[in-house]
């Protein structure tokens, strides 16, 4: 009870809402719903003195109150508590009452609801019964209709199928009809429509039959189309239709292209064969021969080979014409129609997707390239046959035509390499031509040289014959040998002129290549390289170089033996080269540059280089000429010295014939050189040099020398004079370069001859008369040779050396009286009586008749013969 009382007290303390809550909480507590109250419980009522808390401990609370509160307060507390208890009691009563009322009304409501539901349930049952009836009806209706519906559907399907089948069944007939009417297009489209179905049902025998029929018909059709296509003669439109249809018939495009092309190829091929047949009958003949060879005799083959390969009956222009008209024009036709068929046409249709134009284009290119290559090879072969350099215009015109016609191909087939190749052929032909001209020039030059050689050889023999006979050969005067040397300048001028003419005509011929009206002349090659490299360098410059080269070759090949090239030719060539150096080269090159103006100024061989080369060649030739002539004379002198027994010779009564021969030859060389070269400068000498030097030669110096030899005490003196002389004279180069004039050439020849004489003399031992003979010979040479050389002292010096050396090599050096020498020499020169006198005095009588200009030889005496 206390508890309740406390509770009430506590309740009494709270305000109304709190109280309500508390009541509510308590109700909750009552119904075991204390979950929510837990928190409140924990937060509020830990204090055991909280009267409203769950842990309220009345004992503690009471004790606490007792301890803390006064009596009055206790009393108040008690009153308050009683009040609270009372209010709580009343509240409880109210609540109970209220609850009770609610229960009552709820019971009423439930009862009412129970009634209502009952009613509803009945209605629902009724409804469901109705629905079931409806469903039943509907099902029965649809069940009866179903059958008819399916039948209708089936019937309509059968109908369409039947129509299709009818089409199919009619197809072969229809196709046939189309075929008859040549309505290929219709046939193809019909067939195309049916094709898939037939394909699909081909396992059914009836369809199979139809398909087979169709196939057969279509094959026939395709056959016909192909035939039509193959005939090619039909119009382009027909053809294109044909091709289109064939394409639609799934005829592979590639195959069609190939067929088309191969068809075209066979036609072009025949053109080519026609061309080939024209080129040269003999390769086929050779083939025949080889085919026939096995059974036939072996000696058949050489017969075929030796057949003079007949150059084509047609000239190149005709050939090219034919090539252009037949091959190139057909090729163009083929290209156009092909492009029409496969490329242009296909571009519009659905075939584009199959890359057919590209493929077709590739094929076309390959086809054209292939055929053009064959054509080109034929043309090239034909061009190569054009060996004769006679008429260039024909070739140029042919090439022009060739080139021009290829432009058409270029227009039709923009990407093709054909025109370029054609241009290359033209270029090659032009270069080849230039080469041919060069070799023609070269062979012309060599032929001219052979002519010159022959011209030189014939009269030369007569000179030699005349002098061998020894019959009154004239020195410096008119004689039998004069005709030949006289013609030297003429030979030179005619050679030079003919070469120049040849060059000019060649240039004119080559010039045709660059003429304005020639299509290829405006190609960069013909504007630039052809002019500079082709014509100027490889034709003109090469030719000039060849001339120099061949000249040098003469020096080298003939170098050792000296016999193979006639010296006169060397001389002539040397002059020719010199002329080239001075004028001809620059003339020719100016001419060339005028005709072949090169805008690009590519590097070319300058004139100066060529001139230098020509000059070098000229120098070499002239040096070689000197050497050869010198050697010829040397050889005579050498033999004359080597073969004679100088110890046991007899007293000299005559100049040895060999000396006369030397002088004679020297004179004729002088004449020869004089014909082609200028005189040149010589050191001044008095009019009667021979006389003056004669005395110098004979007098003091020579005497002193011999005198020295006699004194045994002073062997050193022997060389003194000669050494002193050498000290002050220039060193003599024997085989040295000569200048381009007569005097220098003659000096060279004489130097070589006399030096040989000297060296030979030094190898021999002389008797007294041997020495005297040398004296006489040297005096004789002295008399005649001075006039040929630039510096007569040179001759004096060398002759001095010879006499000095022979004196040294003499066992018994007793020189001949100078006057006697003179007499002998003069007698040797001028001899009227048939028999030479042995007496010197007799010879003296003839001295007065000594004429320098006109000298006569006596026939060699028996002594001279032995001396040789």
């Amino acid at each position, binding site marked *: 009870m206390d508890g309740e009382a406390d509770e009430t007290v506590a309740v009494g303390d709270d305000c109304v809402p709190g109280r309500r809550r508390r009541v509510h909480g308590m109700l909750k507590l009552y119904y075991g719903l204390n979950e929510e109250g837990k928190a409140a419980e924990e937060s509020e009522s830990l204090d055991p003195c909280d009267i409203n808390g769950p842990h309220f401990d009345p004992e503690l609370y009471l004790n606490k109150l007792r301890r803390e509160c006064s009596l009055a307060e206790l009393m108040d507390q008690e009153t308050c508590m009683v009040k609270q208890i009372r209010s709580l009691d009343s509240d409880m009563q109210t609540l109970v009452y209220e609850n009770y009322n609610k229960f009552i009304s709820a019971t009423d409501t439930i009862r009412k609801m129970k009634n209502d539901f009952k009613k509803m349930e009945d209605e629902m049952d009724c409804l469901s019964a109705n629905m079931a009836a409806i469903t039943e009806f509907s099902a029965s209706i649809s069940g009866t209709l179903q059958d008819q519906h399916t039948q209708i559907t089936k019937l309509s399907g059968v109908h369409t199928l039947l129509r299709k089948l009818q089409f199919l069944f009619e197809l072969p007939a229809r196709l046939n009809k189309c075929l008859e009417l040549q309505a290929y297009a219709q046939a193809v489209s019909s067939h195309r429509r049916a094709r898939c179905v037939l394909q699909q049902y081909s396992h059914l025998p009836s369809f199979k039959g139809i398909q087979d029929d169709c196939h057969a018909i279509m094959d026939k059709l395709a056959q016909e189309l192909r035939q039509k296509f193959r005939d090619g003669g039909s119009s382009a439109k027909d053809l294109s239709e044909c091709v289109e249809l064939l394409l639609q018939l799934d005829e592979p495009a590639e195959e069609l292209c190939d067929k088309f092309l191969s068809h075209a190829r066979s036609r072009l091929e025949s053109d080519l064969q026609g061309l080939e047949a024209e080129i040269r009958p003999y390769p086929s003949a050779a083939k025949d021969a080889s085919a026939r060879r096995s059974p036939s005799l072996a000696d058949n083959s050489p017969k075929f080979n030796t057949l003079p390969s007949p150059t084509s009956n047609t000239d190149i222009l005709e050939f090219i014409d034919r090539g252009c008209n037949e091959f190139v024009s057909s090729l163009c036709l083929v290209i156009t129609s092909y492009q029409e068929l496969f490329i242009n046409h296909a571009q519009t249709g659905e075939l584009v997707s199959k890359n057919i134009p590209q493929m077709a284009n590739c094929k076309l290119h390959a086809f054209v390239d292939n055929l053009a290559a064959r054509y080109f090879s034929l043309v090239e072969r034909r061009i190569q046959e054009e060996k004769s350099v006679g008429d260039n215009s024909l070739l140029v015109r042919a090439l022009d035509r060739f080139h021009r016609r290829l432009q058409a191909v270029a227009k039709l087939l923009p990407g093709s390499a054909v025109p370029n190749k054609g241009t290359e052929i033209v270029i090659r032909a032009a270069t080849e031509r230039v080469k041919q001209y060069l070799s023609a020039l070269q062979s012309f030059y060599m032929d001219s040289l052979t002519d010159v050689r022959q011209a030189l050889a014939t009269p030369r023999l007569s000179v030699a014959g005349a002098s061998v006979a020894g019959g009154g050969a004239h020195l410096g005067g008119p004689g039998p040998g004069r005709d030949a040397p006289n013609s030297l300048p003429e030979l030179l001028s005619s050679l030079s002129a003919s070469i120049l003419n040849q060059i000019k005509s060649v240039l004119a011929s080559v010039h045709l290549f660059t003429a304005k009206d020639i299509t290829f002349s405006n190609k960069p090659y013909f504007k630039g390289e052809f002019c500079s490299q082709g014509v100027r360098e490889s034709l003109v410059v090469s030719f000039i170089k060849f001339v120099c080269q061949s000249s040098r070759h003469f020096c080298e090949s003939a*170098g*050792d*033996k*000296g016999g193979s090239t006639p010296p006169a030719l060397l001389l002539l060539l040397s002059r020719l080269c010199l002329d080239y150096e001075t004028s001809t080269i620059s003339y020719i090159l100016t001419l060339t540059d005028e005709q072949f103006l090169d805008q690009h100024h590519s590097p070319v061989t300058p004139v100066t280089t060529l001139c230098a080369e020509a000059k070098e060649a000229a120098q070499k030739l002239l040096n070689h000429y000197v050497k050869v002539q010198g*050697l010829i004379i040397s050889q005579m002198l050498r033999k004359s010295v080597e073969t004679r027994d100088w*110890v*046991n010779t007899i007293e000299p009564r005559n100049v040895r014939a060999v000396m006369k021969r030397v002088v004679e030859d020297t004179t004729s060389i002088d004449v020869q050189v004089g014909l082609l070269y200028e005189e040149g400068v010589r050191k001044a000498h008095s009019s009667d040099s021979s006389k003056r030097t004669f005395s110098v030669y004979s007098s003091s110096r020579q005497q002193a020398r011999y005198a020295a*030899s006699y004194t*045994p005490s002073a*062997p*050193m003196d022997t*060389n003194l004079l*000669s*050494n002193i002389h*050498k*000290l002050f004279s220039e*060193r003599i*180069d*024997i*085989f*040295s370069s000569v200048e381009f004039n007569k005097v220098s050439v003659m000096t060279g020849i004489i130097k070589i001859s006399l*030096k040989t004489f000297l*060296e030979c003399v*030094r190898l021999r*031992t002389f*008797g007294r008369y041997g020495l005297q003979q040398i004296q006489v010979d040297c005096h004789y040479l002295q008399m005649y040779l001075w006039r040929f050389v630039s510096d007569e002292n040179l001759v004096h010096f060398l002759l001095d050396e010879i006499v000095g050396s022979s004196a*040294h*090599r*003499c*066992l018994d050096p007793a020189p001949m009286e100078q006057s006697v020498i003179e007499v002998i020499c003069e007698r040797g020169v001028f001899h009227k009586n048939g028999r030479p006198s042995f007496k010197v005095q007799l010879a003296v009588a003839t001295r007065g008749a000594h004429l320098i200009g006109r000298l006569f030889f006596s026939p060699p005496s028996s002594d001279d013969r032995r001396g040789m």
Partner: protein
Amino acid sequence: MEDDAPVIYGLEFQARALSAQTAETDAIRFLVGTQSLKFDNQIHIIDFDDENNIINKNVLLHQAGEIWHIGASPADKAVLTTCYNKTCDSRVVSCAAVWRMPSDWETGSHESPDDTAHNPQTLELLCHLNDSAHGNAACVLWEPMGDGKRVISLADNHALLWDLQESSTQAVVSNTATLEGKGQLKFTSGKWSPHHNCSQLATANDTAIRGWDLRTMSQIYCIENAHGQLVRDLDFNPNRQYYLASCGDDCKVKFWDVRNIQEPVKSLEEHSHWVWSVRYNHSHDQLVLTASSDSRLILSNMVSISSEPFGHLVDDEELSEGEDNHQDDKGKEPLKDSVVSTYEEHEDSVYAAEWSSADPWLFASLSYDGRLVINRVPRALKYRILL
């Protein structure tokens, strides 16, 4: 680095014959034979003192006749051969003989060249190499590097192989070879090959060069028209057994490989007159000496056909101007055959040139007027070859 000036020695007589004293490897010594028809001929023994640049000479008399060719024994310093002309019954005959120098020649006067006129000693004749059947002797060749017991003499168109017996006092013909053909053939010159065990000989006659096998005395090759004119001299490359140099009257010096005789390996045309002598340096076969009657002596450096490997280079300019002391190297240029130097000390035709057997860098040349010139290889070249 100035090159030493040439040393010139003058003989009183004209001279053609020159030889190095082959057996002497210490002293630089040359033998010169004179040509005089009127006086007793002499053999000058020229000693060259390299350090002091002085020439010492000794004269031995060679009374038999004028000397055309001289050859020193490779084994015995004192032994030599000469080819000489003698006149008898107004006929000139060429003979060959082996001589011994008197043992005390060196004790002779050393003072001055002029003193030698009195009391020169005479050569001691060992034996004649004459066989009356075989014409005039052109030259005598010692077996190279042999023991001095075998010589070959070339006489007209015969090649005679002699065995020297009894210390060279007796000569016996052991074998002969004869040149046969049209006309009067005559050997002009020859050389005994130091290769192939000294079993080969090369000879020159007219324009042809022939090789002979001494064992069979038969011809093994023949270079027809080796030169345009007469062939004057031959020499074997001391190191390359198939290489042969020749020179002749066409002013050319040609180098041959005898295995391929169609074409010369190399041809030089530097002289302006006949080339009388060609000599390989004994040690450095790129150095070739040629003497010509244009009074010049030319030293060529034939690197391209030398046995020495390419490697040391020769500066052309420096060599051609031997006296210039260019020391600056102008970089190594590619090797080229070149004329090293042209010696112009002679006034007359130079008929003979020889390398010293003692000093490979030294050579002598002899001109007809009796002038002997001793020269050295330019130092620049020498160092280039050595280094």
